[in-house]
């Protein structure tokens, strides 16, 4: 991964010192709450329902073992509320009707935008935490606030078999360009960039303010297809192509034009209409023309200051060469032997065989595989890892993946450099650690936000629904039979749980102070199986929390009745059946699963 230079390191340390300065001025009354708030947000510090929340940036999801160990230390030593606060919070949560897991402490939480969050660190300790993070080049820069957020990418970036160009050097260059950009710290609203370099979109680029696909043109030159104006929230919109091919050298100049026009024109009177998607929709071609004009002026009048020289690209690319793995010579014989050994183990151990199918992805180096550790298991909120699990995961990353891992969009940890002949040993250790559930891509590998257990914005809780579905679908044969399903849960319309892009999406809503849930079907994040990015459609009036698991079951039963075999003899996936037969039978089944009014709220 990219190696921080002395400049990069000093920058992160300076940022930590700046946060301490701001914290101390706030504590001394020199900064008001209103003045401190946007400053702390731009370092990742929210104040949530019961306590502050820290969002640590993991640029494009790439993280090393030493960094994971520091996250473990933070979980262990800082993510601890005092007993009275925790008791008070739990008592307040207990008043909400319905079964729910207890609040948990001392966890790191992997987010769907490839970051890591903590829920209980007191603000008074925040400067200590930022300094600790800085020791491993980590920070919370621009993980919140109305600025350019962490750039996200494909979890398989750099190792995917369908990759055309490795997007990571460009993601790193965008990180640098966007970090403390003086002009864009107070945009109308947050601004998210996603980038992929593969033919399949695993980075949901159509759902971002700017989506970038690194491509090669007919002449073999590298450039970007640029999408603009995607976003979730209460008005889900998919990005539209503003440039079919932008030469790679121009990416920063072009982004500068895109964001400058947005900064000048974006609405600031209504925060629900302030995202760039609203501007692009309202202005259409006029916005595009203005961006192109601005880009031309940056090139012609400003002298194209951010044009990337080959030398700078090469410098950054050097950080992304494959790690030294001391691999044996890559011969057909070695591969055949390693594969035969795997087959023998798989035949002996069905659980290992399942894991190979579900959690292990091919790699562009045939001697290697990319392996997902599943942080989706009973007893834990999706994406949660305890301090001990983080430490143990760091050890696995060190031992089996050249010290490097990825935080995935689906809130798991991916090990991108695992040797074929070490898969079985890794599986044994992952299993002992409880992160070898063979459920990657299946129903229980759901995306869920922290919801109303922690988040101040949430209208309803997400974790109890996630937990109910996880408990109900523990039979691996049944899960496997249901096949690939993107199941996404958001506790409010801000859509941190990406419910819009779920094949099945759940949205928490608040009616008369009670928790209700809208169910949507047919959303897509843009991956091949799901088709072009699109929001799901609501099945009907919202359901009570008691009804949701039965509604999901009814929808899945309908799928089982209606599915057919596809041309290649495989069973149709849920989303394929939905596309073929339409929403009506699913809607009917969902609505028929409502409980009688009397027990909808009281079961």
């Amino acid at each position: 991964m990219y190696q921080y230079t002395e400049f990069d390191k000093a920058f992160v340390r300076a940022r930590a010192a700046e946060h301490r300065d701001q914290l101390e001025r706030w504590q001394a009354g020199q900064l008001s709450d209103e003045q401190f708030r946007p400053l702390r947000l731009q370092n990742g510090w929210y104040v949530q329902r019961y306590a502050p929340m820290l969002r640590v940036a993991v640029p494009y999801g790439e993280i090393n073992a030493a960094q994971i160990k520091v996250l473990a230390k933070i979980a262990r030593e800082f993510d601890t509320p005092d007993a009275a606060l925790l008791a008070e919070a739990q008592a307040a949560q207990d008043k909400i009707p319905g079964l729910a897991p207890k609040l948990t402490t001392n966890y790191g939480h992997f987010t769907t935008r490839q970051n890591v969050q903590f829920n209980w660190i007191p603000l008074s300790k925040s400067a200590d935490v930022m300094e600790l993070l800085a020791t491993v080049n980590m920070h919370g820069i621009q993980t919140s606030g109305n600025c350019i957020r962490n750039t996200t990418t494909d979890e398989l970036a750099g190792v995917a078999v369908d990759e055309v160009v490795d997007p990571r050097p460009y993601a790193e260059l965008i990180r640098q360009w966007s970090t403390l950009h003086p002009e864009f710290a107070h945009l109308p609203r947050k601004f998210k960039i996603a980038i992929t370099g593969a033919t399949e979109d695993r980075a949901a680029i159509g759902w971002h303010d700017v989506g970038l696909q690194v491509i090669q043109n007919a002449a073999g030159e590298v450039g970007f297809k640029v999408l603009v104006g995607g976003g979730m929230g209460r008005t889900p919109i998919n990005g539209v192509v503003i440039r079919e091919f932008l030469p790679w050298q121009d990416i920063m100049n072009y982004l500068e034009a895109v964001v400058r026009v947005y900064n000048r024109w974006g609405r600031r009177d209504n925060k629900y209409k302030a995202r760039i998607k609203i501007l692009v929709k309202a202005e259409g071609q006029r916005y595009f023309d203005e961006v192109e004009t601005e880009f031309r002026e940056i090139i012609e009048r400003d002298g194209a200051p951010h044009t990337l020289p080959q030398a700078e690209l090469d410098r950054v690319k050097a950080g992304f060469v494959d790690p030294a793995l001391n691999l044996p010579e890559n011969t057909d014989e070695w591969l055949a032997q390693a594969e035969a050994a795997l087959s023998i183990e798989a035949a002996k151990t069905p659980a290992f065989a399942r894991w190979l199918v579900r959690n292990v992805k091919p790699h562009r180096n045939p001697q290697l595989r990319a392996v997902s550790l599943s942080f989706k298991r009973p007893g834990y909120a999706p994406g949660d890892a305890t301090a001990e699990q983080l430490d143990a995961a760091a050890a696995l990353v060190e031992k089996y993946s050249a010290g490097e891992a990825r935080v995935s969009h689906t809130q798991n940890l991916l090990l991108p450099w695992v040797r074929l002949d070490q898969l079985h040993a890794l599986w044994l250790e992952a299993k002992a650690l409880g992160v070898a559930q063979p459920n990657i891509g299946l129903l229980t590998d759901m995306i869920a936000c922290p919801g109303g257990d922690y988040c101040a914005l949430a209208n309803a809780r997400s974790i109890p629904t996630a937990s109910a579905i996880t408990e109900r679908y523990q039979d691996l044969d049944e899960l496997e039979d249901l096949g690939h399903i993107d199941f996404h849960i958001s506790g409010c319309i801000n859509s941190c749980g990406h419910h819009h892009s779920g094949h099945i999406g759940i949205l928490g809503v608040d009616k008369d102070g009670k928790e209700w849930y809208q169910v949507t079907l047919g959303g897509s994040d843009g991956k091949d199986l799901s088709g072009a990015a699109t929001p799901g459609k609501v099945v009907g009036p919202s359901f009570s929390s008691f009804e949701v698991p039965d509604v999901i079951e009814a929808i899945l039963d309908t799928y089982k009745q209606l599915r057919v075999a596809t041309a290649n003899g495989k069973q149709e996936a849920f989303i394929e059946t939905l596309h073929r037969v339409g929403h009506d039978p699913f809607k009917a089944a969902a609505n028929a699963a409502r409980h009688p009014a009397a027990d909808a709220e009281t079961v």
Partner: protein
Amino acid sequence: MKIITAQEHQTASKTGVLELANDVDPRTLDLSGISRIDLQFPAFTDGRAYSQAFLLRRRLRFAGELRATGDVLIDQLVQMKRTGFNVAVLAEGVDASAAQRQLDRYAGFYQGSAVETKPHFAQVA
């Protein structure tokens, strides 16, 4: 970056001064005879004036004074300086004593700006 008080700002001469609203495109202006342009921060979280300053200083090569007015706090001074402001009128009641250390904090930045036009990578090379 010169920091002045609201009082100094109010008593200064208005000759050759242009007060620019946030929604005006600086490129539409006739700047002849203008020696100072006052840009507005209706709230410190409203960043439109940063883009206006950049366009004035960098694109239009305006050589006069660019003055930040309105909700101007010390934690935004670095951004102001980098986008081309050279004078800031601190909002009423803001303590200026911690301002200088904010301006001195970072040894450098990644991007080029209105003032230091080369990005970090071009300076190193």
